């Protein structure tokens, strides 16, 4: 393994760590407060294309170490895509199978990617009629497989697995601390399983108790894959409200328009959840005026072309002869 030359013996050596951090890139033209240095942490530079590489690897290693995998036993996981893609690729590269239980509304690109990465798909139609206690159809079906076919499946359960938090305590947090030379004042995150928010914030708060943590969430009824509105957050056991100073609810359509701006003015081909974070960061920058902020950009826009067109129909103009 040589990070300098970027020569590796296998794909696992490329996974991010303090010695091999994902890049921080400064935002220039979309920064509304010049005294405030704003950086994006490009998680799509990880080997399987998203921030989820960190949690997937930590959960997989933990299961391996505990002897839970092998002899025909693989994984089952409810996933909106990124965790599944990382898990499937990692699992297959280590000789295990993965069954991914996916809500129907997940973009087709992600479903196909899951299959390409080697996952077996179970697609469930969620949100037939909102009900208390119903939970999430995909989580329930994955739990059913893990319980009824425990000889074939173990469920890492990213929504409850402390390894998801630990991954960020061990990698994302220390990376940011080192990359900013301890000068970070604001951390901007989105909320899904909350592993990234909780783990990274916990580490950085330990270094600097005055660090501000800002979480963005899309408005209710949103269409931003991978993210959760507060009303949907009860499925995650990893959410720690006490770490979060500001919880901003942002019109989810801005996720798409800001993502497009990132693509077209900063050269950052960021996905919609990054667009939502940028919008939240801009609001805080206008309020706080000075500091050093880091936004965690979970993935790039390549998986979301269909969603982008859905929310910015003008993108489709001129695409046919």
């Amino acid at each position, binding site marked *: 393994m040589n990070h300098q030359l970027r020569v590796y013996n296998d794909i696992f050596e490329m996974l991010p760590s303090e010695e091999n951090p994902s890049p921080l890139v400064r935002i220039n033209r979309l920064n509304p407060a010049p005294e405030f240095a704003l950086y994006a942490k490009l998680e799509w530079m990880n080997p399987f294309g998203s921030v989820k590489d960190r949690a997937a690897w930590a959960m997989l290693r933990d299961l391996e170490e505990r002897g839970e995998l092998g002899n025909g036993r693989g994984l089952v996981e409810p996933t909106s895509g990124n965790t599944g893609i990382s898990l499937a690729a990692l699992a297959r590269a280590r000789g295990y199978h993965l069954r991914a239980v996916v809500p*129907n509304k997940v973009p087709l690109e992600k479903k196909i990617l899951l299959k390409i990465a080697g996952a077996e798909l179970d697609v*469930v139609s969620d949100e037939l009629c909102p*009900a*208390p*206690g119903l939970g999430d159809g995909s989580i329930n*079906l994955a739990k059913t497989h893990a319980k009824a*076919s425990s000889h074939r499946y173990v469920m890492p359960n990213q929504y409850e697995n402390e390894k998801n938090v630990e991954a960020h305590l061990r990698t994302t947090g220390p990376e940011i601390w080192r990359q900013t030379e301890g000068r970070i004042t604001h951390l901007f995150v989105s909320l899904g399983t909350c592993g990234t928010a909780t783990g990274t914030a916990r580490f950085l708060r330990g270094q600097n108790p005055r660090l501000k943590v800002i979480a963005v969430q899309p408005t209710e009824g949103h269409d931003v894959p991978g993210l959760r509105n507060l009303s949907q957050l009860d499925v995650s056991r990893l959410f720690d409200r006490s770490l979060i100073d500001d919880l901003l609810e942002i019109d989810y359509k801005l996720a798409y328009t800001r993502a497009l701006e990132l693509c077209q003015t900063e050269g950052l081909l960021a996905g919609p959840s990054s667009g939502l974070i940028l919008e939240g960061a801009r609001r805080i920058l206008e309020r706080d005026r000075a500091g050093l902020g880091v936004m965690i950009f979970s993935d790039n826009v390549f998986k979301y072309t269909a969603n982008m067109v859905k929310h910015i129909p003008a993108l489709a103009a001129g695409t046919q002869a």
Partner: protein
Amino acid sequence: MANYAHPEVLVETDWVKNNLGNPGIKLVEIDVDTKAYDAGHVPGAVGFNWQTQLQDPVRRDILTQDAFDKLVGGAGISPADTVVIYGDNNNWFAAYGFWLFKLYGHKDARLMNGGRVKWLNEADKPLTTERPNPTPVAYKAAAPNNALRALVPEVLEASRTGKCNLVDVRSPDEFTGRVIAPSGMSETAQRGGHIPGAKSIPWNTAVQPSGAFKTADELRAIYLEQKGVDPKKPAIAYCRIGERSSHTWFVLKYLLGFDQVKNYDGSWTEYGNLIGAPIEK
């Protein structure tokens, strides 16, 4: 149990676990998501498919008496057995199945409180993919008990006269006609809205976060006091295709003890397609 009018029709997950393998107790799983049973079910439970087994394959109707005999007898269920039904989505289609068992005169049918979500989330409750192999028995259903089922003429009359409570258990957006059906549903209607005079009480008003039913006191407060359902009048519950309304039919008839309650299984997919039927939005 929670002061219900007829507590004998509801069993808890612990009761089911303690009675696994008891030969007089037959378990039946009926889900909205027809894949769920195959993924894992309570040991010994048979699975009925609402799409292919609980309705007539040609006409739009419930399965015939003959078909019911074959289905239930084929599952090894005798008329004297206790049938415990459960399913996903807080027992939507399980309640529909329960309604069918009662309609065809089965004496001892029960629902498992909380359905498969509650069972799944309790660590001591096992699931299996193994299908039981029941020995078929002869089953003879009674003629359908029409006191449990509302058809269009009496629905129209209930709406016109106000002599019967009409309870619309769909989501608020379906009630107001903002949507005709929840997104992605293939069974739909030409028009949106609700039957004039109906009260909007979404089915999920009746359940707790665990998926189990609320207590009788809570249910009384909601249905009678807050929503104004008149216990002195008969009641008809409806939804889109008759499964969510079975859930509310169960609440009104067995938990609250209304004497005359009918499930309008034609529901909005019938009513919203009728030429000339009055609709409110």
